[in-house]
């Protein structure tokens, strides 16, 4: 794709980089008019990322490795920075890592947000981020054999399951508390989302002093699967299945990453339909989370009412896409289902109903004393922590940062759908709930406007060719934050590399700081306020560090305590 230099948004970042770090930038490659990949000398990587992050208003969206030995003999690492302060664009900092030494300098000591990504690169590629403070495994299980790096091209077949090397958990949980603490485990499944995760809360009495967690119990190896078994279009349906709630967002991110890489554009009508479906998805997701928030503060009637109304948004999805989940609607080049007149009329009717009904329910929820009591000042995400860890979605918007991919970067039909990004300064659970409430009504407006402005024309672009080894980013704002996908085409009708980052991946590292200083009974609420996307906690392990004792509490008991806050199971 040839782009004229004038239309390139964010070229001054590259110019400034060249000026500030002379002879560091080795290569500059533009994927779209606001996406640039700069290859820098590997030793300058931390300085370059830090400078773009803190000095230029960048946020670290995702970082990943790539086994590019067949292309140029080396591995590569990519740090994707979303530049959001002055000029909004994407700068991807890339460095080649020598296939012999496997070493590259860790960025984490300078930009804490890089910690999970670098740990994952260690697990998946066996590359060594020199200076990485946390060298524990992140993605691979404890019983995975040493020296087997699944995403290396020559490592293993996707169907292979290596024999477990250990029968016990060997993961060391980190506790930064100075004094003595008790150890409260929360897991193996998460409280609200019915997904596995092991939380270890270090408590002094009822107060959480520190927290650590182990996740990825349900790592499905999707990236490996996509690279080895599926064709380009089939991965679209796989990406739908990344999440049970924001599936459509993932497939929009995936398809637009391939579209960007190939330099093709889905027709305007398809783009607008994508935006519309994305907002429909947000409706039911936000209602789910607001409903759960009611449940966790003990307002169960509210929970039932929100879920009753949520059913309307599910019916809306069924009406528009043929299934209660907005799955299977995307293809590379556009969408598969048009919106016809009957659907348009029915959609507008449901939107009006939702607006009145939810407005009433929200009014009641806010008037409920439980809500303020249980959520105000709870689980505060400090502004500095937020800046350091690049969290996304209502979590960061509840902490006063105006970050929303829909407004920051162009994708789907959002260029024609301007809206105000809703921001609150409280940083607590309440702010996050209220941000979601406001966004819910925004979504209703956006759906109406999208129907009104729906361009005419085809909905699917066909007949394009795939060029090998082209890559680009694709992104979409899911209800819980942005999904970022990076795809590189291969030479065998399959992806060479697919990196898919769900929003919760960016939110987990900050959770530790949000839990500190709160009480044990608030923990489920705080975790739920992330609207996390992993799996549910059926029971909780409480570990008493002082007494060297651990006990397991049934989930129902823990949940009951979270709501009633009487008869502590800790005693």
């Amino acid at each position, binding site marked *: 794709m040839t782009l004229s230099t004038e239309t390139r948004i964010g070229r001054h970042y590259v110019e400034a980089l060249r000026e500030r770090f002379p002879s560091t930038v080795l290569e500059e490659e533009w994927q779209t008019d606001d996406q640039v990949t700069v290859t820098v000398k590997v030793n300058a990587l931390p300085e370059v990322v830090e400078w773009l992050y803190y000095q230029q208003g960048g946020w670290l969206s995702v970082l990943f490795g790539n086994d590019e030995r067949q292309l140029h003999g080396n591995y590569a690492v990519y740090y994707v920075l979303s530049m959001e302060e002055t000029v909004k664009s994407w700068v991807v900092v890339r460095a080649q890592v020598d296939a012999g030494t496997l070493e590259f300098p860790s960025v984490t000591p300078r930009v804490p947000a890089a910690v999970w990504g670098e740990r994952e690169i260690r697990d998946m590629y066996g590359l060594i981020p020199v200076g990485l403070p946390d060298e524990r495994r992140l993605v691979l299980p404890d019983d995975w054999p040493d020296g087997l790096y699944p995403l290396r091209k020559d490592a293993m077949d996707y169907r292979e399951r290596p024999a477990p090397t250990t029968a016990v958990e060997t993961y060391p949980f980190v506790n930064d508390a100075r004094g003595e603490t008790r150890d409260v485990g929360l897991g193996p499944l998460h409280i609200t989302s019915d997904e596995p995760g092991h939380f270890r809360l270090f408590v002094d009495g009822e107060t959480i002093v520190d927290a650590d967690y182990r996740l990825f119990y349900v790592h499905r190896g999707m990236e490996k699967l996509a690279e080895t078994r599926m064709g380009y279009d*089939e991965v679209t*349906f796989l990406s739908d299945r990344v999440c049970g709630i924001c599936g459509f967002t993932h497939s929009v991110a995936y398809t637009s990453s391939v579209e960007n890489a190939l330099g093709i554009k889905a027709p305007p009508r398809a783009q607008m339909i994508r935006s519309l479906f994305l907002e429909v998805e947000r409706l039911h997701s936000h209602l789910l989370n607001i409903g759960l928030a009611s449940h966790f503060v003990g307002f169960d*009637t509210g929970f039932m*009412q929100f879920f009753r109304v949520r059913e309307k948004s599910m019916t809306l999805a069924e009406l528009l896409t*043929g299934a209660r989940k907005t799955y299977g609607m995307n293809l590379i080049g556009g969408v598969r289902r048009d919106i016809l007149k009957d659907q348009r009329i029915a959609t507008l009717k449901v939107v009006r109903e939702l607006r009145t009904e939810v407005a009433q329910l929200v009014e009641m929820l806010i008037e409920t004393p439980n809500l303020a009591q249980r959520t105000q000042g709870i689980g505060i995400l400090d502004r500095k922590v937020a800046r350091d860890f690049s969290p996304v979605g209502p979590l960061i918007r509840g902490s006063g940062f105006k970050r929303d991919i829909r407004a920051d970067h162009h994708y789907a039909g959002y260029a024609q759908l301007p809206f105000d990004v809703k921001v609150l300064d409280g940083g607590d659970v309440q702010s996050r709930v209220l941000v979601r409430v406001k966004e819910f009504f925004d979504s209703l407006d956006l759906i109406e406007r999208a129907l009104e402005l729906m361009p005419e024309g085809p909905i699917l672009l066909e007949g394009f060719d795939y060029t090998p080894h082209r890559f680009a980013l694709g992104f979409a704002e899911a209800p819980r934050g942005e999904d970022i996908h990076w795809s590189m085409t291969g030479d065998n009708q399959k992806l060479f590399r697919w990196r898919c980052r769900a929003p919760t991946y960016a939110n987990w590292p900050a959770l530790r700081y949000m839990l500190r200083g709160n009480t044990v009974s608030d923990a489920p609420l705080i975790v739920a306020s992330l609207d996390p996307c992993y799996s549910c906690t059926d029971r909780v392990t409480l570990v008493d560090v002082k007494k060297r004792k651990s006990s397991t509490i049934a989930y129902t008991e823990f949940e009951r305590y979270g709501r009633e806050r009487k008869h502590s199971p800790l005693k």
Partner: protein
Amino acid sequence: MFKLLKTVIKTGEATVRYPFAPLPVSPGFRGKPEYDPTQCIACGACTIACPANALSMATDVEQGTRTWELFLGRCIFCARCEEVCPTRAIALSPEFELAVGNKADLYQRATFTLTACRSCQRPFAPSKEIDYAMALLVHSGLEADAVAEQRAHFETCPECKRHQSIPDSDKLTLGQTTTKGGAL
């Protein structure tokens, strides 16, 4: 609190009567794929398009058959099969009650006869597919008789066709098959 009670009373019963009453679904609902083996030509387009590998096809050379199979347990109801099917042999229905007591009931199979290659006698393509291809040619304007005359050609496997189209070296005179540049 009063408002809440009012809402609750006004709503009445929110629970639907299903399964004691039928549950209506939206038009265009994507449910269980309905398959019509009489329409199917066993071309395999759906098995290639299926992202979940719910559709597959297996060839038995000894029996000279090809078996199409749908495993509902893997189906994600995306309707890609419906989209790529050239003969409308498969389409998604509004049916969503798919629970079975026996896993084997989730499989659906159809077996097709393959035509043996006229030259090497190896079965190579479903008979129905060959007939369909010939019918398509007639439909696109060729004379029915002319197409029928070519049947032997259509019933020859691609490999044999390649062999047949290589000129016999005894009859080959240089110059006939060379281009201007002299390269073959």
